[in-house]
């Protein structure tokens, strides 16, 4: 032992005894305290516990509205009631579930699932069991106040869109926040919150979404409000103004009709999107309340992919529209020189393989183009000319220009889930497939086939940018977007002049692929394209089944130089129509509507009175109306000036 314990090892027994007395005394005093609370004042505290049921009732903040560029309301809110389930008393809840499910037409299993999912919340916080109460539900709840005290109603505001999926892909839709979103929000979002799930609703959720308020009330044991503690007022969401022009949007919706496809109209001077359509589309109103699992499954499994915004997500071969890139590359590089001419017998042989020109399989007219130069090659969309030009340029130069013009890059449009498309190159095949580039692939790429893919919004930006002399503005939907991106690709004046002259010719010169689209007094220009989804041989094997439809493109703009409007149209439908025939009329309708409105404005016909905001419930017969009414006039034009088939 390093130290000796006290030699005197007598214990202080007296003082230890004192410690015992102190312990007994201490416990005694504590028990007296409990006696006073639990026996003497028990009734008083019992009443306090009974009264002591604080309930937090949310006051839902309305989401901000969306206006069009003229201030007309596109997306609004409407008042509605939600049914709340009060969970204070688990036994009462358990007992009430069956009659509640029965009375409100809900599945009792869903109710159980919901209760399980919200276990973590304090019990005095009610949960929403039916987001949209019908008048019958309201009557049911009112008449069962006494025997079903677990039900309560909450006044909420619900999203209202123009019905029929009008602008549905651009606006997107709202829905209940997902667990991932809650986690990613740093505590800003809570279970049950309604947030933007797609489109602008999601992109600008932080602006549109307000902050819910909260009312803390004291309720008695049957849930009746007896006192009001505090109220925290909701902060409504802010409205946003869009660049969308309601009038053009209506025309674009009607003109595309129910055909799968997309329309993007934008002002290349600013990048402002004037109209955006994608078909098919769900009706965002269906999501505003709560969509059932079956409906959701159906939307996701639909072969036509209605949840897919083709305007920014469809990555498809641009077909002959890409010839503008090849032509620009040729003029800028002087390879082959501008004077270059080639003879088109309906096919060409490159690297030992025969490549057809579309004209060879044309049902009407000649089956060869004869000798042509660049201008006519663009007009008639001659494949053989561009095969040759592409071969001379090589894939490096083609992909250099394609890349410069934004293929393979997102345009930066303010929508979630935009796709980038693809501009193939030697490096790309090396990276993706670990092989060398085949020279034959260049031939396909030169006419917009092969691996090259673009989105409609990309093509609108591309054609608009080239026609504007190489100034590419970032497409966007929010009117007061700050720092709109701009890219400048210096193009020589002769190049731009040549290209735009040729695109003007496509619509306005005899032999052009879009001559049926001519509009009086408007310099409509553009380029058509028809991209094969599958090869000729496969098509021959399977016949003309619907899913092998070609993608018809038309990118139109006006005026010829420094355009004010570009419209890229994609139509995915059969019937053997080429892009100029299927997509062209849509582009023409939108451009025409743009000029009609502009002229009316100039003449003072459009005033504040007659361009009043359209209330969303006053349905403008826009969406999904068959396009016949609008197209009639154009069909007759087709008869008088038979359109050329092209490939």
């Amino acid at each position, binding site marked *: *032992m*390093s*130290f000796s*314990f*006290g*030699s*005197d*090892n*007598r*214990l*202080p*027994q007296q*003082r*230890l005894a*004192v*410690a*015992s007395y102190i*312990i*007994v005394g*201490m*416990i005694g005093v*504590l*028990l007296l*305290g*409990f*006696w006073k*609370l*639990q*026996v003497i*004042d*028990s009734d*008083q*505290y*019992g009443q*306090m*516990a*009974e009264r*002591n*049921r*604080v309930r937090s009732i949310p006051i839902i903040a309305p989401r901000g509205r969306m206006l069009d560029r003229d201030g007309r309301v596109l997306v609004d809110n409407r008042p509605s009631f939600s049914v709340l389930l009060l969970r*204070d008393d*688990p036994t009462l809840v358990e007992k009430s579930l069956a009659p509640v499910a029965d009375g409100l037409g809900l599945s009792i299993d869903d109710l159980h699932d919901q209760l399980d999912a919200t*276990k*973590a919340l*304090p*019990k*005095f916080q009610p949960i929403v069991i039916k987001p949209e109460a019908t008048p019958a539900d309201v009557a049911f709840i009112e008449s069962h106040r006494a025997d079903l005290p677990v039900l309560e109603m909450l006044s909420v505001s619900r999203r209202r869109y123009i019905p029929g999926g009008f602008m549905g892909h651009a606006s997107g839709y709202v829905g209940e926040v997902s667990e991932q979103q809650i986690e990613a929000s740093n505590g800003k979002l809570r279970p049950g919150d309604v947030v933007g799930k797609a489109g602008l609703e999601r992109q600008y959720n932080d602006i549109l979404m307000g902050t819910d308020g909260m009312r803390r009330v004291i309720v008695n044991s049957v849930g009746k409000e007896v006192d009001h503690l505090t109220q925290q007022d909701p902060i409504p969401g802010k409205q946003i103004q869009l660049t969308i022009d309601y009038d053009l949007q209506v025309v674009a919706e009607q003109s595309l009709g129910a055909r799968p496809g997309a329309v993007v109209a934008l002002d290349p001077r600013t990048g402002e999107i004037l109209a955006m359509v994608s078909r098919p589309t769900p009706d965002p109103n269906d999501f505003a309340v709560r969509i059932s699992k079956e409906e959701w499954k159906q939307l996701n499994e639909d072969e036509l992919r209605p949840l897919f915004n083709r305007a920014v997500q469809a990555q498809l071969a641009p077909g002959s529209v890409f010839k503008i890139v090849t032509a620009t590359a040729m003029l800028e590089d002087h390879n082959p020189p501008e004077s270059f001419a080639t003879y088109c017998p309906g096919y060409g042989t490159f690297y030992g393989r025969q490549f057809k020109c579309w004209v060879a399989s044309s049902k009407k007219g000649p089956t060869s183009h004869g000798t042509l130069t660049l201008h006519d090659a663009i007009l008639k969309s001659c494949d053989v000319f561009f095969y040759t030009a592409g071969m001379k340029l090589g894939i490096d130069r083609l992909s250099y220009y394609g890349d410069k013009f934004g293929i393979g890059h997102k345009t930066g449009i303010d929508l979630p889930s935009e796709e980038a498309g693809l501009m193939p190159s030697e490096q790309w095949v090396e990276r993706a497939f670990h092989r060398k580039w085949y020279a034959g692939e260049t031939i396909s790429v030169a006419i917009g086939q092969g691996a090259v893919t673009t989105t409609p919004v990309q093509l609108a930006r591309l054609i608009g940018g080239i026609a504007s002399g190489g100034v590419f503005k970032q497409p966007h939907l929010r009117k007061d977007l700050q720092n709109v991106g701009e890219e400048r690709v210096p193009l020589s004046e002769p190049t731009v002049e040549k290209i735009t002259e040729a695109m003007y010719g496509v619509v306005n010169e005899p032999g052009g692929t879009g001559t049926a689209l001519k509009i009086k007094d408007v310099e409509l220009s553009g380029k058509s394209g028809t991209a094969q989804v599958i090869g000729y041989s496969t098509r021959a094997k399977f016949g003309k089944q619907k899913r092998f439809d070609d993608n018809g493109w038309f990118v139109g703009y006006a005026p010829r130089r420094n355009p004010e409007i570009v419209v890229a149209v994609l139509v995915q439908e059969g019937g053997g129509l080429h892009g100029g025939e299927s997509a062209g009329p849509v582009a023409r309708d939108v451009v025409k509507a743009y000029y009609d409105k502009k002229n009316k404005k100039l003449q003072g016909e459009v005033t504040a009175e007659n361009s009043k905001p359209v209330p969303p419930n006053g349905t403008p017969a826009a969406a999904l109306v068959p396009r016949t009414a609008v197209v009639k006039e154009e069909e007759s034009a087709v008869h008088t000036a038979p359109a050329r088939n092209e490939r």
Partner: protein
Amino acid sequence: MRDAPGTRDYDWWLLAILAAICALGVLEIYSATHGSSLAGMHMKQLRWLAVGAILMFVLSRVDYHLIMDQSLILYLVCIAALIAVLLLGNSRFGAKRWIPLMGQMFQVSELAKLIIIIVLARFFTEVRSDKLDLRDLIKAGLLVGVPLVLILKQPDLGTALVLVPLLFVGAFLAGLQWQHMAAIVLVGAMLVGAVFYPPVSKKILKPYQRERITSFLHPEEDAKGSGYQLLQSKIAVGSGGFWGKGFGNGSQNQLGYIPVRYSDFIMSAWAEEQGFKGVLLALGLYMALLLRLVQNAQRAKDRAGMFLVMGVAATLGFHILVNVAMVIGAMPVTGIPLPLMSYGGSATLFVFMAIGLVMNVRLRRFVN
């Protein structure tokens, strides 16, 4: 060797009381957390109890004299650990009290309490007189003062306060003279007065501590903070009545009005659901536990053992007093858990290790 204790020498009564209290705790933790996001906490608590029981056994086997021999090293380790926690500890709820160890967060101050019990026991054992003179009293005060200040810095007022009765009981049993005791009581009273007197308390207390004092004195002025907690606890206890609302039926408990109802305020949840009869049982068990400890002290072989056991008794007694008094609204919120009933890893381990020391002393009472 003097070490040859057998199993029948263990204090089986003490173990039975201990087990009974733990059982009440686990039951009430279950009732307070089932059906909430904390569900399953009672199983965690059972794990802590199992680990505690093992530590208790281990600590009871090593002769306490050998442990006390290491007092100086233990003391230095304790000081170093407290400084370390201040420098690199993890903050939770605005206080640096935790260090990670084997994937768990441990409160260093719990270990500090155990070491101070041992160090003080050795110090008082070495005072070889029936009377404790002023010099030794001041020495003991300094011995406790250093870790106390370090724990206060975390800040953890509750645990720091526990050291005071530990020192006082030790000194009392070491022969504290009446005039010194009177002086200490006077100083203590002045300190308490200062704490409750705003102009002075402003200088010595942290804002949250001052808020607890104010809300204790005027609970109605603070309907959301700790005054609200005390009021809700009192409502829970009072509404339980004599017979209680029944297991799992306390509205204050089940609806979540009782603050930290599985931990610091577990007595409140117990009192609501089990009523006065349940409180009688629980406090009866605690009284039996403390008296049993004193009895073990009385029968200790030497003063060293007696000081150890009474150190444990003083610490546990103070915990029980402060926690239960808080639950009935007779003391401000201090964050001191109820030993063995409140959920908590470090605190549970501390109690079992402390009881291990008591067993240690008991096992060796006849050995010579």
